[in-house]
């Protein structure tokens, strides 16, 4: 499974903090984004950062391994 996490303004928009997706061979970050876009078309307006296993990634073609944790994040507002 792929664990998908949402925080703050993103979790509010999607009305959930966490989703699980089935991992399939050859799956990339773009596949997860496509699935989310289908169900939550406005979601990506507010997403500024994406991390895989706690490390920020910019390349949406990044391949995913089973048990990866993906975080979709709005602009930070800590401090």
């Amino acid at each position, binding site marked *: 499974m792929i664990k998908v*996490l949402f*925080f*703050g*303004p993103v979790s*509010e928009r999607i009305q959930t903090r966490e989703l699980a997706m089935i991992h399939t061979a050859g799956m990339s970050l773009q596949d997860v984004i496509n699935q989310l876009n289908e169900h939550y078309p406005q979601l990506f307006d*507010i997403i500024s*950062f994406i*991390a895989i296993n*706690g*490390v*920020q990634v910019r390349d949406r073609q990044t391949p995913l391994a089973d048990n990866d*944790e993906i*975080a979709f*994040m*709005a*602009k*930070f*507002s*800590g*401090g």
Partner: protein
Amino acid sequence: MDAVRLQIEDFSQDAEVLALKASSKCMGGIATFIGCARDYSEGREVSEISFEAYERMALPELQKLRAEAIARFGLLDARIVHRLATVRAGDNIVFIATGAEHRAPALHACEWIIDELKSRVPIWKKEVTPAGDSWVTPHP
């Protein structure tokens, strides 16, 4: 007491500065920054502020930030504490302390850390107002 922490409870500046000083007898200047909750934000009355972090990423990023500040400004030590709690006006949110042989690097590092923290560390702020809650969207 770890030099970098995400915690619900409040912190004591006296205790943090004591821990900072313990690292060196050559510390001539210590700068601190404390971010607090205000009762107004952009004209709206705010009753409470709550924070949420992606801790798996936020804690290592804060640790990296501390190490970078120490190297960049030649600090003797630095500490960063961010609360993940619901706070009211006047309550503490974030604490940064930097110690150096002389005052200028300590003061400049303190400002650099809070600026970087705001742009680099995955923490989000929700303001609770009489008119409802809203997540804060930082200015671009």
